[in-house]
């Protein structure tokens, strides 16, 4: 599904380069569930952002669904991730001004999907996530776990092939975290959605089929489960 080759990300500090990512090679197949682990500052989030095309590497080759991302213009990149990738954030990043329903609906609006179809899709996912009763509430009226549920629902609404999750359980208690991870597993196994998550939590990492350990911008070890 995606291939990273010799990917580096660095900042020029004085005369020397300050590497955040250093010569990373990585392949992810469709249907995988990958967990990226590592201490603070090891480059986990940067790696995830590069995979999600929110950030660009300083060097290296990046292929996604057979396309050379490093060759694309910004507009094309946007179109690409809009089509295939859903994002889930640690801080949920729901839009405070919008209700649950509207938050989930927003990506569809930007994909120019008609009103009727939008309604059906949102109703479907609300039902699936069991949050129909909450559809008219605003994010501030929900618990953290519920907010993340909405965040995931929003990421899934446009039927992405890949979900990128940056510490999705970081702001949740362990019970809520477990529920979210179960949901990811279900999505991965039943719907064949590829998932790449960044996490600190050893237990959560083990939901994945592969754990990649980063240290100082390099892949230290890969563990297959």
């Amino acid at each position, binding site marked *: 599904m995606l291939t990273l080759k010799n990917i580096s990300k660095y900042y020029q500090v004085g005369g020397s380069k300050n590497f955040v990512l250093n010569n990373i090679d990585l392949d992810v197949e469709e249907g995988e569930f990958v967990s990226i682990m590592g201490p603070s500052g090891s480059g986990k989030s940067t790696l995830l952002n590069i995979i999600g095309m*929110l950030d660009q590497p300083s060097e290296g080759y990046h292929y996604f669904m057979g396309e050379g991302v490093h060759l694309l213009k910004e507009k094309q990149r946007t179109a690409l991730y809009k089509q295939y990738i859903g*994002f889930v954030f640690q801080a949920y990043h*729901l*839009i*405070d*001004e*919008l209700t649950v329903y509207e938050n989930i609906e927003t990506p569809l609006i*930007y994909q120019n999907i008609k009103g009727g179809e939008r309604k059906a899709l949102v109703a479907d996912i609300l039902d699936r996530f069991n949050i129909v009763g909450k559809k008219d509430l605003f994010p501030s009226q929900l618990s953290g776990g519920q907010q993340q549920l909405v965040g995931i629902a929003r990421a899934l609404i446009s039927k992405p092939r890949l979900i990128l999750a940056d510490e999705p359980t970081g702001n949740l208690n362990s019970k809520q975290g477990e529920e979210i991870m179960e949901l990811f597993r279900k999505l991965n196994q039943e719907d064949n959605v590829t998932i790449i998550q960044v996490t600190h939590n050893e237990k959560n990492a083990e939901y994945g089929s592969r754990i990649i350990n980063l240290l100082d911008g390099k892949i230290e070890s890969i563990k297959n489960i």
Partner: protein
Amino acid sequence: MLSTHLKIATRNLRRNFTFSVINIAGLALGIGIFLLIAEYVSFEWGFNRFASNYKNIYRASFFNGKEEKGDYYLPPGYAAALKEKLPAIEAYTRIGENLGGGVAVVHQQKADAGQAYREGNVSFVDGNFLQFFGWKLKEGNGVLNAAQTAAISASTAKKYFGLNPAVGKIIEIKNQFGSTLYTITGVYEDVPAQSDIKADVLLSFKTLENPAFRNGNDWADPVKLESGYTYNFFQIRPGTDQAAFAKLATQVTRQILPDAKGLKVELQPLKDIHLAPSFNYHFQTYGSLIYVVSFLAIAILITVIAWLNYINLSTVQALSRAKESGVRKVLGATRSQIIIQFLTETVVLTVISLLISVAFVTLVQPYFNTFLEKPLSLKLLFDNWICAGVCLVVIAGCLFSGIYVATILSAFSPLKTIRGVANLKLGGVSIRKVLVVFQFTASVILIITTITLYRQLRYMQTQDLGLSLKQKVVITGPSVINSSGIDQSVAFENRVKQLPFVGKIAASNNVPGQGYNFSAQGITKLAPAAGDEKKSYSMLIVDNQYFDTYDIKFKEGRAFTPAMLIHGWPKTRKVILNESAAKQLGFANAEQALGQKINWGKEFEVVGVIKDYHHLSLHQFIQPMIFLPAVADGYFTIKMSAADMQQHINQIKKIYEELFPGEPFTFSFLDEVFDKQYRTEQKMGSIFMSAAGIAVFIAAMGLFGLAAFTAKQKVKEIGIRKVLGANVLHIVQLISADFIKLVLVSIVIASPIAWFAMNKWLQQFAYRTGMSWWIFVAGGSLAVTIATLTVMVQSLRAASANPVKSLRNE
């Protein structure tokens, strides 16, 4: 998509309530002021355009090539003579404006004494007048072809006859042409407010053709070609080349008029009689282009300040919107989609402001109209191109500021906003500073302008005039002058003098603050210098008490004697000069002039020279004045004690009505008459004061919002500083310093601009104050004080917050 945008827009307005209120209030106020002034501009622009054929109507004037201003008072016989020679003239009409002013006596029954009304706006006109100018008839046919016919306005008819029909009734008009009976042939609707030609009573010119109705004023014979006193309006055949026609008219006029050599006829379109189409327009106009333009400038300035406010406040809000913008991008929004969303918010806000501004205009309209003395309304905006102008300004303002704000708000890269709002830096800092500087520069200019205006006004009102205006009541004399009238006037003076509360009484044919009697040329010393005969003198007819009553001091000689009055100036040939006149005549000083003879057709003796005094406002230099003796009866000036004024005036009224039966008693206070000359400056002062107030208010609101934002943004810094031991003063300084610096920069920019503009403005006054340094200090201090207070509120709040709270949030 649009409904989603609208929904988000309204939610956001509600969520950021304080910002929304400041934004909307500022914008609504700005647009409201703009609408009010647009009404005024539309009103002034639309003058004299109600006649269906106004485009073909021109006023003729004579230019002799030397004087700037042309002569608009043409000989009465001229129009008919010109029409005969020029077939392009379809019709003409003449107006002897206010020529017939005096008293109208209305008899309900044939035998009754009648009710008298003093009427100033009584004009002599030609028979076709009403139809020519498109004045609407209400009753009768209004044709004034026959002698002794009149037409009156609807409100005059109501005043005279109540609800009874007026056509066919006879009224008696007493004026300089004696006492004449007129039959009313028509009642016209009250003249539209947007007409420079106005009249309550119209009399037929035909009447004056009969010497019996001229009372010896043969100059007014309407077929003569000598003295010019009529406005001439010509309706030219459509399609006629105006310039060629004027040229032709000039040629013909030189044949018609004996002394018209070198004279040029010019035609002024009726529509341009009110408002000059350009600044260097050389025709006489009734409106003031410079006022309209400066009003418009103020309006646009205030609107711009309001929009800048909006831009400033909205962009600083961007930080709280950054996350939304970033998340939307991650969810797949393109930049243009985000721009449109923020633009929608601007449009919603503008529409709300517009609605509020309309409500605001409706609310203040009556006060504004009273103040301007003009019947303005929102309806005027739809009369002409102003409508398009207003729409253009509002839409352009909305789009420009909206797009600017949206561009800033949509510029954030999604990655940065997702990493955390705290790390964000907002662009456009220097632009925001420029905007604040612009707002305060405009405000400071307006403040300085206001101070200068009031200073000049005060200067003019408090200068020593050389005469005393205090406790003086001016009573208008009888309107009909005849030989027995002179005795009556003397009797009136004598009886009033007996009243215990009356100090002094004087009679004159005009009064200070109002005008002279006439101006004359050709007055010289017995041995004149070359060109002396071309010098002009202002003549005033007075009695012997005039100087004493007004506390006018004599430099040399004395007042007239009673004997000089009785014989009158044509016979006694005595004059009194003011110093300026003595000087202009060529006398070295007052002493040398005394007892000398001067030549004015015949020889006149100078019996006194008075010290110069300001007969009119300080707009003008003191004119060379010559006083002529007579038993005057135009105005009686009575100096009386201030107590029980109303009751005392009633006593005088009784005497007046007894001696001048049928004459309406009207009086005024001299100081008010004099002060009226400064009405323009008083109005200008009020307008600039309001404009300055509003500009400062809107700018301060913007500053308030900016300071609130800065306080919010620096909350962590403030918390850390407080933990490290900073006190409230330090914190206040931290927040305020930047803003105060901006205001100081504004003052530096505004001062030279204001200095230049006001210096120019002051040039128009003969007697004026200068621009002092303290005006700038005062204006600047005011701006700084207001800015400081505004910012202080916010910084104090920030400074007194508990640092533990703000730091824990991080």
